[in-house]
C-alpha cells in the first residue's frame, strides 16, 4: 500500500478541517466553558479544583465526541455530494487508501483540537490550583483514553457514512455512543428480565457493542484515584482493535458502492 497517497489525502483532510471555521468556534466555546468554571468556583466553598477538572474533562469529552461524529459523517458524504471523490478514485488510488487517508486526517484534526482543549484546561488549573495538589498525570491519562474514544467513535461515524445519509449516520453513531456507555446497565437489566429473548438480546448487545465506559476514567481523576498505565494501555489497545475492525468493514462497503 502506497503510504504517500494516504499521507497526501490525510494532509488535505487536515488542511480542510483547519480552514473550516467551525473548529475554531468549537475550540473557543470549550475554552469559554473551562475558563468560566473558574468564575463558578469563586462562588463555591472549597472543591473548586475538583469542579474545574470535572467540567474541563467533561467538556473536552463531549465536544470531542460531537466533532468525531459530525466530521466523521460528513467525511465521505461531502466528497460524494460535491463529486470530488470522482477525481480521486479515478486516479491510481484504492478506495481503501482514500478512506484511510480521510480517516487519519480527520483523527489528526480531532487530536490537535483535543490537545488545544487540554492546554486550556491545564492552564486554567494552574491558575486556580495555587497550593492544592494537581492531578496532572490523571488528567493526561484520562485525555489519552478520550482520544481512544474519539478514534473509535470517528470510525463508527465513517462506517455509517459509507452507505447511509448524514442524518441517519449521526443518529446511528450517537446511538452507539450512548449504548457504549450504558452496556453494564443494559446487561444488568437483561439479567433482571423474566424474558429469555430480552436476556439474549442484551447479551448480544453487551458482547458486540464497544464498551466505551472502559475509556471513561473522569470520575477517578476527579477523586484522585490513581489509574495504572497498564489499564490505559490495555483499554487503548481494545479501542484500537475495535476501530480497525470497523474501518475494515467500512472499506469493504465503500469499495463496492456506486458513485451515481
Amino acid at each position, binding site marked *: 500500500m*502506497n503510504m*504517500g*497517497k494516504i499521507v*497526501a*489525502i490525510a494532509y*488535505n483532510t487536515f*488542511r*480542510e478541517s483547519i*480552514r*473550516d471555521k467551525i473548529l475554531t468556534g468549537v475550540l473557543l466555546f470549550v475554552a469559554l466553558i473551562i475558563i468560566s468554571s473558574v468564575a463558578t468556583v469563586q462562588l463555591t466553598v472549597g472543591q473548586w479544583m475538583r469542579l474545574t477538572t470535572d467540567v474541563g474533562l467533561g467538556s473536552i469529552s463531549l465536544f470531542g465526541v460531537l466533532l468525531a461524529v459530525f466530521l466523521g459523517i460528513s467525511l465521505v458524504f461531502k466528497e460524494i455530494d*460535491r*463529486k*470530488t471523490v*470522482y*477525481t*480521486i*478514485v*479515478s*486516479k*491510481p*488510488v*484504492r478506495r481503501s487508501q482514500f478512506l484511510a487517508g480521510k480517516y487519519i486526517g480527520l483523527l489528526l484534526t480531532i487530536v490537535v483540537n483535543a490537545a488545544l482543549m487540554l492546554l486550556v484546561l491545564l492552564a486554567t488549573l494552574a491558575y486556580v490550583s495555587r497550593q492544592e495538589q494537581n492531578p496532572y498525570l490523571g488528567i493526561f491519562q484520562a485525555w489519552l483514553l478520550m482520544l481512544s474514544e474519539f478514534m473509535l467513535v470517528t470510525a463508527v461515524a465513517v462506517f455509517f457514512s459509507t452507505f447511509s445519509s448524514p442524518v441517519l449516520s449521526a443518529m446511528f453513531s450517537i446511538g452507539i455512543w450512548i449504548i457504549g456507555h450504558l452496556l453494564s446497565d443494559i446487561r444488568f437489566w437483561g439479567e433482571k428480565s423474566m424474558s429469555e429473548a430480552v436476556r439474549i438480546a442484551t447479551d448480544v448487545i453487551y458482547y458486540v457493542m464497544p464498551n466505551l465506559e472502559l475509556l471513561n476514567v473522569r470520575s477517578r481523576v476527579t477523586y484522585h484515584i490513581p489509574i495504572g498505565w497498564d489499564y490505559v494501555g490495555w483499554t487503548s489497545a481494545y479501542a484500537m482493535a475495535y476501530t480497525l475492525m470497523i474501518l475494515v468493514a467500512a472499506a469493504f462497503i465503500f469499495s*463496492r458502492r*456506486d*458513485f*451515481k
Partner: protein
Amino acid sequence: MGNDVISIEHASKTFRTGFLYRKVEAVRDVTFSVEEGDIFGFLGPNGAGKTTTIKMLMGLIFPTGGTLSIFGRPHTDIASRAALGYAPEQPYFYEYLTGSEFLDYYGQLFGVPSAERRRRIPLLFEMVGLRNCADLALRRYSKGMLQRIGIAQALVNDPRLLVLDEPMSGLDPIGRREIRDLILALKKRGKTIFFSTHILPDVEMICDRVAIIVKGELRRLGRIDEFAELESEETEVCFRGLSAEAIGKLSGETGAPVVRGTLAYFSLPSRDRAQSFIGEGQAGGGSLVSLTPRRRSLEDVFMSEARK
C-alpha cells in the same frame, strides 16, 4: 486490436431507483474501442448514457454486465489509471484550496515527484488559459475557470489517455475554441482523447471517430467520413437573371426555388442531372452563379438517430 487504449465490450448498467427499486437500464450492451492517438467523440442527447459509460470506465460505478479495459488492463486495476487523466462533468473541487495547491495535491496522488510538480504546474496553468490564477482560491473561480482547472488536473500526470466528460459545457464560444485547440494540440503530442459532448460542430471539426449513444444503446460508430448519410446526391444550383417563365419551367423538376432579388437557388435531387440542368437554365436566359454539392452535417445524423 493491439493498439486499443480503451476497449468496452457488451457493457451494461442497470440502476435500481425509487421506493419500489424499479429497474432502469442506463446502458445496454455497448461495445466499442478507442485507438491510440485518436480523438474520439462520444455523442448523445442528455440522459443517453454517456456519463454512465464514462463512470463505468473510470471505476466510479460497477457495470452489471460486460468488460471494460484501459491499456489492455481491466478497468478495475488501479495500475490502468496511472497514464490516464479524467475530467468529470460539472467539476466541483476543494474550494478551500488555491489552484496550485489543488494541482499539487492531485499530482501527489499520481506519485509525481515534487520537483516535477513544481515544474509542471505553472505550465498547466498556462496551457489551460489560467495564467495568474495559481494563487486564487478555487471558491473564487468562475464556472468556466473550474472547467479549465478540471482539464488541468486531468493533465497533471502527463497522461497518454485523456477522458473528458462534456469539456465544452459551461464555456463561452472563445473558451470552447480554446479547449478545442488544446485538444488538437494534445493529439499532436501523441495523446489519445476520449470525450463526450452534445456540441456537434466541434466534434465534426476535431474528431477522428465518433460513437452515438441514444437511450443507452450504441446507434452509430465509426469515422465521421465513413457515415454514408453525410454524402448526399443533393446539389444546389444558382442562376442569375432567369425569366419568370424559365423559373416556372425549371422548377417542374426541383420544386419552387428560393428567389432572392435576381438570384434563384434550385435544389437538384441528383448530381447526374446537373450538367443538363445548367444547360436548360442558360437556355432560359440565366447565367450560372454557383454549383454546390450539399453535404449533410453530423447534426443531421445525430438528430435522425435521436428521433428513432
